[in-house]
């Protein structure tokens, strides 16, 4: 499945999921999911809910990853988009 076949909402969630998995902090996604939806089963969420979860967890997951030198990508499939780099 190519990147183009994902919706923006799906990509937002996949990006956060990938970073959480890379930095071994998927527990943070569980925390945010439970806080928002009273369960931690992200597979049960709609695309809109996953996007909401990604927005809620974004700072928490990026905060330290960026300190460790991580440069966020625009998608989980590579290709940093210049306009979306964090500083």
């Amino acid at each position, binding site marked *: 499945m190519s990147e183009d076949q994902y919706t923006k909402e799906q990509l937002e969630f996949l990006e956060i999921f990938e970073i959480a998995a*890379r*930095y*071994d*902090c*998927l*527990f*943070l996604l*569980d*925390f*945010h999911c*439970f*806080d928002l939806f009273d369960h*931690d089963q992200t597979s049960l969420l709609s695309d809109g809910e996953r996007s909401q979860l990604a*927005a809620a967890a974004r*700072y*928490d997951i990026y*905060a*330290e*990853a960026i300190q*460790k030198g991580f440069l966020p990508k625009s998608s989980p499939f590579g290709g940093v988009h210049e306009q979306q780099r964090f500083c």
Partner: protein
Amino acid sequence: MSNNAFVEPLSFSLIENGLAGEKTQFLFRTWRDNEGIIAQDSQMTRLSQYLLMTLPSAEPGDVPPLTFAGKHSTFRRFFPHALEPETPRPPTSFLPSVYRQGVADAYQIVMNGEPWFDIQRTGNRLGDGIPDMTLQRLLVKFRTSAGFTRIFCLMTLLEVHSRSYQSDRTHHQPSSQQKSDWHPAYQARVQPSSMHGNVPG
């Protein structure tokens, strides 16, 4: 601690003996038994609604940046707007500096790997509209196997002393409780007859 008269450290034996409530005991035991390593855990996830998490570094004399506040945390209860996306200020800026300075030392200890457990009498340090409270706080530092680090704070509201506070601004019914008639150190400070039902923090 420095001259923080409103913060008093407590013995971890109170937690071990089950006198600090089930949530605090679970958090402390998980930290101890896992040697500070955090992983996906359904019980911890359930507890997260009561937790605050911060980065593991802070400016001298200040608290670390807040990264997560569970919806049943005391912070969310008393500062419900602090984590709204449109809020331009850092969440911790909602805490008056006199309070932040008073509770900051403990974070330095926890950043060095030690746990911290205390009781606080807030007085008017949390600002206008926030009641004088007795709070119990456990701080522990967790890290993932990949080195991702967070300080976990479990704050338990033991008593609201002032009557000026208008119940809860966001939650009309406090959810799950820990027993509040437990704490020897706490009982030394307040009359048992004045103790309220506990609200999770």
